[in-house]
């Protein structure tokens, strides 16, 4: 599903983001990418959804070589990859329903399809009773669930979660992790970027550890060791 071959990313003038990363994530896997701050976790996530281009190496997503992806093809890639961030990135003047629907609207989906998909997705993230609430009327956990819902509307094969629990308390974090596990059970590949030790250890899934931009460990059913 995801294949990195000797991928490096260097920022000008000579700052190393990641270096010589080679890894393969199989379809339906739940992989946690862990490491201290500044070790290249977010760079790795950005390379996955083509926010950054690698300086060296090749990246394949579902057999599609996105190493030198053309600007016009990036939207197509992003409709196949859901992305969730620590700061939720919701539109404050749109309701829960509108925030989720927005992802379909800008992709040109027809209104009847939007009316069909959005309620289903909001049911998955357990927000079917808060469709008309605005982000500031929701808890952090609920806001993150809206963001996850929005990431799911395109039925992505891969969901990238970049520090999704970074702004949440333990209870909300656990809810989010449970939700991600549930989504993974439906067959979506999850790439979780985090430095939340408890969450990673609770998951007992594959853990890739980064240090100074390099993979220093890659363990099935691993634990957060740093």
């Amino acid at each position: 599903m995801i294949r990195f071959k000797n991928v490096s990313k260097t920022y000008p003038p000579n700052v190393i983001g990641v270096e010589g990363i080679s890894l393969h994530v199989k379809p339906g896997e739940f992989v946690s990418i862990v490491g201290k701050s500044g070790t290249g976790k977010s760079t790795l996530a950005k390379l996955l959804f083509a926010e950054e281009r690698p300086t060296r190496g090749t990246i394949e997503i579902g057999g599609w070589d996105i190493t030198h992806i053309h600007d016009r093809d990036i939207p197509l890639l992003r409709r196949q990859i859901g992305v969730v961030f620590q700061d939720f990135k919701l539109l404050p003047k749109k309701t829960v329903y509108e925030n989720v629907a927005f992802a379909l609207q800008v992709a040109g989906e027809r209104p009847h399809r939007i009316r069909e998909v959005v309620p289903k997705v909001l049911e998955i993230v357990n927000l079917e009773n808060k469709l008309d609430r605005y982000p500031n009327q929701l808890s952090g956990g609920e806001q993150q669930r809206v963001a996850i819902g929005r990431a799911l509307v395109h039925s992505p094969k891969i969901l990238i979660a970049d520090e999704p629990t970074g702004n949440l308390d333990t209870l909300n974090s656990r809810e989010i992790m449970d939700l991600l596990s549930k989504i993974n059970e439906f067959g979506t590949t999850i790439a979780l970027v985090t430095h939340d030790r408890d969450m990673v250890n609770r998951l007992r899934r594959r853990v890739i550890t980064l240090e100074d931009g390099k993979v220093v460990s890659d363990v099935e059913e691993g634990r957060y060791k740093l």
Partner: protein
Amino acid sequence: MFVSSYRVTKFAFQNFWRNFWLSIITVSMLLLTLVTINILLVLNVITDRAIELVEDRIEVSVYFYDYTEDTTVSAAVAYLRGLGQVRDVETVSADEAYTQFVTRHANDEEIMASLEELEENPFGPSLIVKAHRAEDFTQIIDALDNPQFRDSIREKDFSDYQNIVERIRSTTDRIRGFGIALAIIFLLIAILIVFNTVRIGIFIHREEIGIMRLVGASNWFIKAPFLLEMILLSLIAVGLTAIIVYPTVAFIEPQLSVYFSTESAGLVDYFTYNSLAIFGGQFLALVLVTLFSTGLAMRKYLKV
């Protein structure tokens, strides 16, 4: 495609309303530019009409001695009509000249008494020659120096209309030059304002644009509302220009007609018959200019 176009249009209108005052300023500047251009057009029509009227009134009178034979006068008429520069030649016979003189001075007893004392018609035949253009008269006057009639011509009366026409032209050219300079300045300011409107629009929508990119909106979908908004502003500016220009020309038309002593100065007709070319052309030109400016702003500030 239809759904996306509808949403792009919706976003463009949202941009317009969210930056309402900025939109108003942009439209005002575009309007100012267009009004200046239309003033130039009005000036052009008035100048053409004025020159046309002056040229229409230009004529040279050729007076023959009273002993001149009719055959000489007829030969002169035929010769003049053969010249490319001559529009029309009118012959006034000696008797007609006498009658016209008597009619004109019927109330002047002194003149009438003097005329009676002469006992015979003191007037000779004359010609009234009209040219196509003011500058043709020099050639016509030169042509009358032909030895065949030169000795029969007593006087050639020609006012310096060419000088008048040149003065009209030079005055209007100066006004036009000033107007063009003003229009260019307004246009440059309009380009800068459009650039700034788009820049601020991008800044206000940066969060939304970021999310659009994240969830897979195409580059076209992100950029199109800004382009459409500027087309909309251009359309409003052209519409307002037409609303201002028509009543204005309709208001000044009667006054111009009095000045030119004609039924119509032709201003309203000019704007009516050429409305599509004038306002359609201005709309297209404005769209090109605003899209160029929008393109520059997006290239600089909208990374998609």
